[in-house]
Structures are given as structure tokens and as C-alpha cells.
């Protein structure tokens, strides 16, 4: 069984109001030094061994992320 972890984040320059709100909340709680906070998505795929990293990239480009507004990063975990 293969496992892929996919991180989807807003592209640079895409306004992230949820991230900004959470960052302001940290600020209000007195945490200093947080320069930026971005909120994205975490997707975990459990696949049989036939699913290649290239296929997962294709899944991301086609459905799991929107390349107009999002970047994605794929990490393979497990065997």
C-alpha cells in the first residue's frame, strides 16, 4: 500500500482571508514574530502499488488542485 500526502496552498499573491484572520488572532493573543500564516488543504491518498507519483500529479492537476489559484506539493510516505 502506498500513501501520498498532498499539500494544497494558495498561490503567492492570492488573498487568503482565513489565514489573515488566524494570524490576527495569534497577534491578539500576544504571539509575536509571526510574519505570515497561510491556510491550505491536506489530502491523504492510500493507493495500491500501481498508482505512480506521475498519476498522482495528474490527479492534482485535473481535480485536487486548481492551478489557476493553487500550488500543490506531493510527498510519498510508506513503502
Amino acid at each position, binding site marked *: 500500500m502506498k500513501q501520498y500526502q498532498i499539500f494544497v496552498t494558495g498561490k503567492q499573491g492570492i*488573498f487568503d*482571508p482565513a489565514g489573515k*484572520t488566524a494570524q490576527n488572532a495569534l497577534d491578539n493573543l500576544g504571539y509575536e514574530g509571526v510574519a505570515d500564516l497561510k491556510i491550505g488543504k491536506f489530502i491523504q491518498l492510500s493507493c495500491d502499488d500501481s498508482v505512480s507519483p506521475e498519476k498522482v500529479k495528474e490527479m492534482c492537476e485535473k*481535480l485536487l488542485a*486548481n492551478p*489557476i*489559484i493553487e500550488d500543490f506539493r506531493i510527498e510519498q510516505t510508506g513503502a
Partner: protein
Amino acid sequence: MRFGVVVFPGSNCEQDVVHALRHLGYEASYVWHQDTDLEPYDAIVLPGGFSYGDYLRCGAVARFSPVMDAVFAYANAGRPVIGICNGFQILTEAHLLPGALLRNAGLKFICESVPLRVEQSVCQWLNLEPGTVVHIPINHNEGNYFCDEATRAQLEANGQIVLRYCNPDGTRNPDGSAPNGAFDDIAGICNERGNVFGLMPHPERATDGLSGSHATDGAAFFTAIAAQVGSYAKEVCGA
């Protein structure tokens, strides 16, 4: 004149659209998202709602519904496709229209009637003078239109920007007039050919005089399609 109104799992404005269309004197039928034959219809509406629960991204899953292949063919034949709210989001996810709809800048779901300025555009389905201000309700959480500057410039140059958020007198604020933060105050766009039209406001909710002031401003968004489609259908389909 017969409209087909596509119903995805989670659509919730299809009844409003069908009601409005029948109120305006047209035939309107529901089209289930697994249907693949759009030939019986003179125009297709993708209504608002929360297709597939808005999971992943608004419109991202609906875009792969079986009916969408037929919608592509319909759009590519130059026939009228109009996407309202979630329907607009589906059209952008399907790349039938450029850009994307992000979460509202203020993080709030917005439900209110807003003034919109009709722009000079190639949209075939809105027969209103440029500069006309209409008041139409918006009702969304992800209506913040986004595209890159190059795309925006192209939209402008091609006359693809159909509607902008504005002040009641038609002017725009220097720091933006869009309640949702939309780039360049963009509320509605069309494709280059002008036959695929997507907008965040809900014209179907402004078609009945009983529902308040400016209550019939939305009717023009459907009557123009009906007025054009007869001659257009003849030209495109030889019907």
C-alpha cells in the same frame, strides 16, 4: 423557447430559475446532471447552490458530471450557456470561462441586493445599454473573482467583462466597489464568442414585481436570450 436548467446534487436554485422562466412565459425543464442530451433545449442554465456540497472547491466536482461533456459541446456550438453563482463557479472550473472564484475577502457570506453596471461587452445574452445600473441579489461565500492581470487585460480588450459591482449611481470606488473583494469589481464575464455567460448575482431572484424595489431588473437576463435564440438557432443549427 425552452430552457434546460441543470440540476447537480446540491444545486438549490434550480426551482427559482424554473419558476422565474415560467413566470416570464418560457418553457423550462430540469436536466439531471447524469443526462447527456441537451438537444431539446434552446438555452442551458447552470443554477446556483452548493453542488457536491462545495467540497474540494466550489464547482470542482460538478465540472466532471456526465452532463458537462454535453455542456462543452453545446457551448462550442455557440449556443447559450448561462451560469449563475455556483453555475459560474462550475464554468470557471470547467475552463469554459477564465479565472476562479475565491472566498469573499471579508470572510462573510453575503446576501443582499447590489447595484451592478452593465459594461460594453460581446455578451450575446444581455440587451441592456452599457452604463445601465441594475440591482440584483447576490448570495454567496465564494464570489471573489480572481484572475491574473494579463487575463484581466485580455478580458477587458475582448469585451468579456459583462457586469461590474458599482455604486447606485454607476460610479466605482477607487479602492473597489465589490462587496466580496472581486478583482476589478468583476461580477460577470463571458467567453470570447459571447455565448457562455457566468455571473455571481442571481437575476432569477429579480423577476417578480412582488419581491420589492428593482424587483424585475433580472428579467432582462433571460428575455434577451429568448429574443436572440430564435434567429440564432436557425443560423447555427439550420433548424
